[in-house]
């Protein structure tokens, strides 16, 4: 076969390559969730594309799992430890409270001026989140969502280039 023939054959094969592929599952529910509840005009400046509720849960668990209170490092002293809650509702409320504190501390971190300090803080935050993710996996080892959260947080730590991770919940 001449070189011209080989070129023609390659071009023909490339031209026949399918332009469509069927995903193995319906991805729309995850896309819709990642889009959030707001309309398309939503501001685009958000640093993290992680849905807030899972973030808060992960963040709150980070407080319990790793014992890292970002608020101690950046600003207010940590509140005295709350008495252990009883019942699942009380526990959920406690998780929510800790999560809110954590998110507030992270927001404060965003206001700090020193880049080195911010990077250090982001690393500390990611470390705490990773601890929370491990805790989630321990609590619900068969739940694929917890695995994804752990993977994403671990990926973000390995990445370290400021690329926001995409999370599938």
């Amino acid at each position, binding site marked *: 076969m001449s070189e011209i023939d080989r070129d023609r054959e390659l071009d023909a094969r490339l031209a026949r*390559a399918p332009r469509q*592929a069927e*995903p193995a599952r319906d991805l729309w529910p995850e896309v819709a969730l990642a889009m959030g509840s707001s309309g*398309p005009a939503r501001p685009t400046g958000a640093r993290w594309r992680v849905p807030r509720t899972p973030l808060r849960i992960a963040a709150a668990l980070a407080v319990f799992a790793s014992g890292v209170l970002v608020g101690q490092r950046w600003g207010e002293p940590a509140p005295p430890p709350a008495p252990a809650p009883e019942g699942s509702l009380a526990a959920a409320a406690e998780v929510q409270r800790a999560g809110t504190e954590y998110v507030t501390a992270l927001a404060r971190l965003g206001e700090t001026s020193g880049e080195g300090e911010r990077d250090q803080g982001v690393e500390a935050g990611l470390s705490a989140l990773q601890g929370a993710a491990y805790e989630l996996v321990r609590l619900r080892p068969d739940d694929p969502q917890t695995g994804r959260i752990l993977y994403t947080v671990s990926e973000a730590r390995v990445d370290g280039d400021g690329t926001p991770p995409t999370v599938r919940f």
Partner: protein
Amino acid sequence: MQDPRVEFESMYRENHRRVYAIALRFARDRDRAEEIVQDAFVRAWRALPSFNGDSRLSTWLHSVTVNAALDRVRATSRREARLDRRVDLDRYADEVGRAMPGADIDLERAIASLPNGAREIVILHYIEGYSCAEIAELLGIVDGTVKSQLHRARTLLKEALA
């Protein structure tokens, strides 16, 4: 007036196979391709107000997808280089066979085996129909580099398929 999310879902249903095909070829991995699809549609949703109607919506979405795929490939390439992770071409070929019935698996494997830069250019030029000038602009390289990469890629593809 229809709910924009409902309209957007229609757009997703019409275009997701095309988007997944691009994502799969760039990522060479099903999980990552799915992440690219999600990323592309979320980007499109957020950027919808900036769509000015100069081009077809599907064309605009295509360019959003390509950018999302390129961003993801660059990020994962850096990470894979650090972790010495390799793409599993057998798994990729299986996914191509499943997702694209009738696909030329040998050709797809040969494309997937190309070096990173050359692979992206081959996909963009021969499969997605971008011109060399468009690719140069998209990748931030000169036109001549695109042409030389294409030439090199063709040689490698012909050798692989011989």
